[in-house]
């Protein structure tokens, strides 16, 4: 006998998913919470076994409310399909789960740009560095440069400094217009009782050199990262020695599950593809709610609020007015932040013919250029088909944003939502063994 479907399946146990699961359970719904990680918390509350993370009280508060929730950790949802009763979620190494509604909170991953030297050992995505620090407490280097754009560079720089790494510089590509004092907005602290971390103060205390309007154009080294080349807005250049380079260019939302269910997507201020939701976190697909980073990058507190709002909307709660206002405010703030921190428009000019764009398939920029100029590829889809970027193991998670931008630029335009969609759909969402597919 097939078990009764759950009222709701929440995918992802980051701030958004935890907020959704806690609120849905509180409203009396039968909830299943599925997450790829062994420990709940997502990107924000990533922690070592027995360890603690930032704003831990808020995390503990949420965890206490998950008593009635069926939790399936360490499992990836690789396929979601719609059927008569609702949805069937197929999981790696676990029996499928059915539910009448889904709240998708899959978060995102580091957005990467293939600048020359980015594939040298010692160069990492900022989120990856942060994850290493949170889970293992160590950094793979002694002298670091943190570069890119946006507020997420700050926690990484501070965390590195705290771990005993000499942070030689933080290079922020854009001018900073006041947000440095309060980088995550009024919603920054998931719990009002906890003070927002004052990153600027922390950096000053540790004498971290913070350069604005400064871009990283190249990483140099013989077999591994040895130095970075920075260029300021006035054109002056400088080389700074570093054996660890943390690059943060924002995030790319995970959209494979929303797209699988036919939810519409759109282009956000920061050039990312995001899921379309209404003021109550409903997607354009019936019964599919989406919250957190997948609807637009906005930090942990906004993700949490969106997750809660999705659950309350689903539960039919009449008490969502305040939360809706908070989400609206948070989104406005996040949108302003995204506008303030664009990827530098000229980054594609730093590429050389041999700069590797897709690391899985080892496709250099020159092949993308030939696909456009010789073979007539006029969008990202055609570039992918003709030159193979994004066709390898990560299925374009790493190079999709960059390839879309490059394809557009080679055709004299900027990337559109369609360019990005060429890299956002993935079936299965994660690689699955043939025998598991055969038994699905």
């Amino acid at each position, binding site marked *: 006998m097939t078990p009764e479907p759950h009222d709701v399946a929440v995918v992802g146990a980051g701030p958004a998913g935890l907020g959704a699961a806690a609120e849905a359970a509180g409203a009396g719904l039968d909830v299943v919470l599925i997450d790829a990680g062994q420990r709940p918390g997502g990107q924000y509350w990533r922690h070592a076994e027995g360890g603690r993370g930032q704003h831990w009280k808020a995390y503990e508060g949420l965890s206490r409310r998950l008593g009635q929730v069926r939790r399936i950790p360490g499992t990836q949802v690789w*396929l979601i*399909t*719609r059927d008569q009763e609702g949805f*069937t979620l*197929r999981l790696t190494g676990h029996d499928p789960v059915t539910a009448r509604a889904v709240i998708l909170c899959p978060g995102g991953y580091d957005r990467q740009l293939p600048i020359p030297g980015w594939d040298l050992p010692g160069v990492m995505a900022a989120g990856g560095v942060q994850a290493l620090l949170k889970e293992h407490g160590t950094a793979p280097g002694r002298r670091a440069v943190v570069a890119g754009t946006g507020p997420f560079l700050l926690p990484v720089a501070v965390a590195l400094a705290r771990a005993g790494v000499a942070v030689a510089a933080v290079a922020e590509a854009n001018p900073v217009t006041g947000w440095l004092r309060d980088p995550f907005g009024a919603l920054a602290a998931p719990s009002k009782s906890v003070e927002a971390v004052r990153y600027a103060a922390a950096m000053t205390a540790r004498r971290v050199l913070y350069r604005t309007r400064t871009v990283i154009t190249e990483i140099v080294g013989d077999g591994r990262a040895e130095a970075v080349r920075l260029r300021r807005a006035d054109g002056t250049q400088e080389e700074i020695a570093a054996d660890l380079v943390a690059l943060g260019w924002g995030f790319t939302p995970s959209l494979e599950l929303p797209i*699988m269910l*036919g939810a519409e997507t759109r282009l956000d201020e920061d050039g990312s593809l995001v899921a379309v939701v209404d003021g109550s976190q409903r997607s354009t697909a019936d019964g599919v709610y989406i919250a957190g980073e997948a609807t637009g990058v906005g930090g942990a507190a906004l993700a949490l609020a969106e997750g809660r709002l999705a659950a309350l909307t689903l539960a039919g709660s009449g008490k969502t007015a305040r939360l809706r206002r908070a989400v609206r405010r948070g989104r406005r703030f996040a949108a302003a932040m995204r506008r303030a921190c664009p990827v530098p428009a000229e980054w594609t000019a730093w590429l050389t013919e041999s700069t590797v764009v897709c690391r899985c*398939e080892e496709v250099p920029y020159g092949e993308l250029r030939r*696909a456009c100029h*010789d*073979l*007539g*590829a*006029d*969008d990202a*889809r*055609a570039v992918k*088909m*003709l030159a*193979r970027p994004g*066709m*390898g*193991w990560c*299925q374009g998670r790493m190079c999709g944003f960059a390839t879309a931008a490059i394809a557009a630029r080679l055709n004299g335009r900027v990337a559109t939502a369609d360019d990005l969609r060429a890299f956002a759909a*993935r*079936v*299965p969402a994660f*690689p*699955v*063994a*043939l*025998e598991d*597919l*055969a*038994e*699905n």
Partner: protein
Amino acid sequence: MSADLVVVGAGVVGAACAYFATSAGLRVTVVERGGIAAGTSSAGEGNLLVSDKEPGPELDLALLSLRAWREDLGDHGGLWEYEQKGGLVVASSPEGAAALRSLAAAQRACGVEVAEVADPVDYEPNLAPGLAAGAHYPQDAQVQPMLAAAHLLRLARERGAEIRLRTEVTGFLRDGDQVTGVRTAHADISAGAVLNAAGTWAGEVAALAEVTVPVLPRRGFVLVTQPMPVGTIRHKVYAAEYVGNVASGDAELQTSPVVEGTRSGTILIGATRERVGFDRTVSPEALRRLAGQAAALFPVLRSVRVMRSYLGFRPYCPDHLPVIGPDPRAPGLWHACGHEGAGVGLSAGTGLLLAQALTGAPAALDLAPFAPARFEAAA
């Protein structure tokens, strides 16, 4: 704006036609509403097969096409990863083996090279043991279809063709019955002849000229595995039941995958056949069957991971034959569409035949079985 020939559609069929027409000296303009190979040509596989075809006009066209890929286009094969790796068809039961043997005999009589194989494992070391019999088809080959389409168009451009992407044909220019060009969103293009190479959408294009060409979508899913060591799978391998599936008119889901390695190391497992209109929703049942059958043929693949799947819509006609040639109902309009699950393979022969017919050269094959108006006669 005028041309000798306007080709509607920049899929592999339109590309091959543009290549052979420009090579025959025609001034060609290709008009495509999306990008290069935006349709089915980028959503299928690149098998060039004679092995799966029963004797008849399609097999004749396949043999002509394989020769065209090998000879007329042979100098360029490297551009589209042409590889004549051969096909291996296996049967698991004595009945299957008998059916395979009689098919092979009939094919041989039509000019197909085929050798009986007592133990298929001699050809494919990773095949499941205990298969009843096999047949080896050395002519079977493969190309990368998007590269084939893109390079054929590039070569056509070098021979004077003009390629207009993002340009949808919205109607035809007429002089009485005569088709004298196309209307597009941007401009009218007058032409001596217009070729409908719009693949699965060819029926809609034909309708713009008020003629019926019954091309419909037949959905297929393909699985792509993680890269495997060279030589894991050497041929195009499939079970004998596949041939029955290809020829079947059944709307139900049918599977019997062709398993093959690619230049990049990935293994392609495809494809299903199912008539469900243009439905893009993922079918767990289709994925399950493909995976199960591939794992049964090649136990080594059991633990190999599938990185992605994709789907496409084959352009099929009720009698499973393509539509190739001039349309007497709308003089000046020609068709090259409806190649179903073999359009990549058949594109070279189709292009060759059309260029011959358009320039009045002697035909390498009789076009009568592919006549555009044949469905009216039947009705």
